[in-house]
């Protein structure tokens, strides 16, 4: 809790409406969408200009408070919670789109702009911003950059990182910085913006960014394939990629997910199928026709049980929207949904499904799996109850063993959700102590006093360890 004087100082800087410190506010800024995570901050502030961000940083330094940048709090690894208390710097009121530059095909926006609002604004000018994380209706661009958010279109169009051209922000000592610009090519010194993308709020506070835009595809076709077993669905994905077709979207849902999503969305998904693939191809009219036919041929060859095509754009949008609800819909059937973000090279997808099935039997767990199959990015989700300690232990053992395999296959413990608090224990297993040590050094050079989002990704207070 802050002293009355400190609160008075903050309200003087930002205005009363931009400072929250009542217990009820602290509780509701104590979580994001990650299960089992709740930490009370000391205070929550909403800057309305980048200058105020500098003032806030200086204030926090005087008071000795850690600073935790936050957007809408939809993250899935605990990135925006105050794990060591401190000040939540909520950027949702820095929410202006500053420029859409049609000559350079870029747009510049403040960090608190909602992803979908940004998408809509550039769409209105005939331009396209592809990254579309599941929570795009409320997630913010700043949060997307900090977590390097992916989405359904990642397969063909890439992720947030691929669209960030410039970043403006404030460091933990109040220094403001700009890195990158509108030039398509830029090798002037270290690519600092690439360090900031995916830095999870540990290196700097992002206040503004410039994004690359592209012309939208002219045509799109959406296919829906049903499978009697998940292995065949995995094989279909690998075969489509091997046939050198890159759909814009290739999403998978297993039976448990299908049932939950259908229960919410009522769009006629098949409740008796083991898995479905939602595949979109887009681009030039002629190419799209050809690619859709090629995809269909592969699906037939590997033995999909049924293949359907979306009747029109509205139907296709409904299907994509329904897929975006998968995680939340799984929460219908159990009090706790433990979600993971394992990603494997695509050729390993079928084996990963087998492994998930084997492990859920071994640990006697109910698991729903969905994800961006085309990216090899799966979200096996354990449907459990946090009050059942035994079940929770089995769930964590399940992930532990699954990650061993994923890493052995050259995969990663997090495809798009970030490490945050949730996956800290796995990071070193993946990149080794050498990798973590380099990260620690980078962190120290940006934030020598460790005031920015402490306790995330790795424990930065630890002394540097040596390999072996």
């Amino acid at each position: 809790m802050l002293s009355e004087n400190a609160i008075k100082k903050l309200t003087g800087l930002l205005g009363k409406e931009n400072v929250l410190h009542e217990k009820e506010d602290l509780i509701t800024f104590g979580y994001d969408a990650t299960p089992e995570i709740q930490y009370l901050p000391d205070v929550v502030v909403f800057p309305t200009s980048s200058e105020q961000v500098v003032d806030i940083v200086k204030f926090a330094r005087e008071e000795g408070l850690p600073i935790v940048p936050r957007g809408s709090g939809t993250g899935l690894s605990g990135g925006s919670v105050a794990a060591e208390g401190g000040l939540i710097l909520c950027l949702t009121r820095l929410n202006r789109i500053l420029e859409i530059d049609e000559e350079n095909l870029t747009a510049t926006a403040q960090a608190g702009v909602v992803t979908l609002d940004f998408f809509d604004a550039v769409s209105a000018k005939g331009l396209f911003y592809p990254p579309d994380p599941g929570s795009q209706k409320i997630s913010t661009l700043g949060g997307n950059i900090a977590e390097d958010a992916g989405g359904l279109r990642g397969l063909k169009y890439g992720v947030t990182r691929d669209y960030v051209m410039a970043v403006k922000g404030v460091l933990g000592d109040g220094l403001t910085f700009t890195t990158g610009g509108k030039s398509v090519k830029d090798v002037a010194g270290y690519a600092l913006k690439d360090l900031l993308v995916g830095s999870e709020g540990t290196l700097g506070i992002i206040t503004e960014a410039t994004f690359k835009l592209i012309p939208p595809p002219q045509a799109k076709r959406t296919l829906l394939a049903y499978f009697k077993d998940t292995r065949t669905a995995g094989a279909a994905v690998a075969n489509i990629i091997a046939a050198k077709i890159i759909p814009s979207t290739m999403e998978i849902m297993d039976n448990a997910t299908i049932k939950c999503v259908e229960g919410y969305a009522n769009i006629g998904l098949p409740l008796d199928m083991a898995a479905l693939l939602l595949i979109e191809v887009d681009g030039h009219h002629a190419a799209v026709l050809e690619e859709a036919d090629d995809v269909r041929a592969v699906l037939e060859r590997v033995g999909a049980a049924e293949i359907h095509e979306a009747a029109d754009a509205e139907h296709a949008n409904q299907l994509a929207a329904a897929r975006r609800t998968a995680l939340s819909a799984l929460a219908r059937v159990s009090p706790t949904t433990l979600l993971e973000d394992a990603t494997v090279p695509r050729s390993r997808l079928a084996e990963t499904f087998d492994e998930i099935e084997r492990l859920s039997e071994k640990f006697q767990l109910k698991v729903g799996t969905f994800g961006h199959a085309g990216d090899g990015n799966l979200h096996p989700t354990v449907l459990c109850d946090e009050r059942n300690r035994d079940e929770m232990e089995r769930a964590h053992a399940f992930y532990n063993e699954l990650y061993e395999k994923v890493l052995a296959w050259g995969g990663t413990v997090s495809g798009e959700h970030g490490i945050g608090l949730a996956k800290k224990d796995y990071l070193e297993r993946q990149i080794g102590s050498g990798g973590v040590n380099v990260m620690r050094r980078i962190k120290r050079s940006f934030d020598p006093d460790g005031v920015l989002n402490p306790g995330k990704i790795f424990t930065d207070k630890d002394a540097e360890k040596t390999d072996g």
Partner: protein
Amino acid sequence: MAEKKCLGNFPLADEPHYEGMLQCMRCGFCLPTCPTYVLTGRERSSPRGRVALAKAVADDQIAFTGALKEESFFCLDCRACTTSCPSGVHAGRVMEACRNQAHEAFPLTGAVRKFREFILQRMLPSPDLLETSMLPARLYQKLGIQWLIRHSHLLKLGPDWMQKAEGMMPELYPPLRPQLPEVIPAVGEQRGRVAFFLGCIMTLMYPEVSRQTVKVLTHQGFEVLTPKEQKCCGAPHLNEGDRSTTRQLAQYNLDLFMELDVDAIVTDCAGCGASLKEYEELLEETGDHEKLAKFHSRIKDVSEFLAEQGLRTDVLKPVDKSVTYHEPCHLCHAQGVSRQPRTLIQQIPGIDYRELKEASWCCGSAATFSLKYTSESQLILDRKLENVRATGADLLVTANPGCHLQLAWGLRQANMPQKVVHITELLGMATG
């Protein structure tokens, strides 16, 4: 109730269901659909935040504080979050249960308490008392005092809400309930028989609307039964956090209507319909599940019923108007009736239908919210009015008296030309 151990720090039994709160996985999908979150940007004023606070009370983390009382009444109970929630969380219901708790945690005293008890426990449950109480208001209008007061700014001296309430009052006609015969035969070939649940606000403030509802139903081939002894559905009580009176009224209406041999129980008030459909949950502890389920399956909003039965279009004459449609929260979010009214409107010959942007966004009326939070309500209303303006339609159709009052008032204040009509009024225009 004192002997039963309450959940966590809730002061009263009848707490929100713990499982229902645990169901929230805090994904945030509700945030952009919640008018009070969009207005304030404050997490505690969001569905996810409100559920988290109620859960914190249940988990002994906080006491049932003033902030939770405030949030439970600041929630519009518009249920937009229910529609948007893939996990099936009912944040509105959690807040309704908290309103009840709030009265225990922060009891009213003296005259205010007596007044509330009189309104909720005596006046609203008694149709006769209600109708008599409206008499002075009608006289006041008839004598032209209303015009005088509206134009003399006399009421500006009072608090905001009184001025607004005064300005919202539609032209009043004698209540419909005592006038309506208990049985009205179908016109033309009879297709069925329905009971008509006539809501308090409909009979008192919009008797001419409900008259059209009955006319439309009979012309569509349904015999209409309107039991005179019916009482308030209980929505105002639930809204104000008086769950025990709500349950008494629910049991009374349940027994009364289940005596009737009808195909459906139809209402033209979205608020009543939503409330009647919740009797099953409200009375679940009585254990009479079969009766409750049957009652639930018979409750139909008039649009839902007519769309299900199929509109007899051969009896309709053209209405040459451009119209747009505002979805009452308690119809689209609480009852899931969204497509049906649009289908009916478009079946009327001559209608130029124009879809309203953000049609299912609350109008800011939300029972007494518009009087308790006048400035917040105004901001929510302004957003709605801008969207109405963009349609350029002649008529704004809706299906709930709360929305009707708020929208008509808002349009008048903004000097906009649109007239607000209930969907049965529109169908009435098309019915000879």
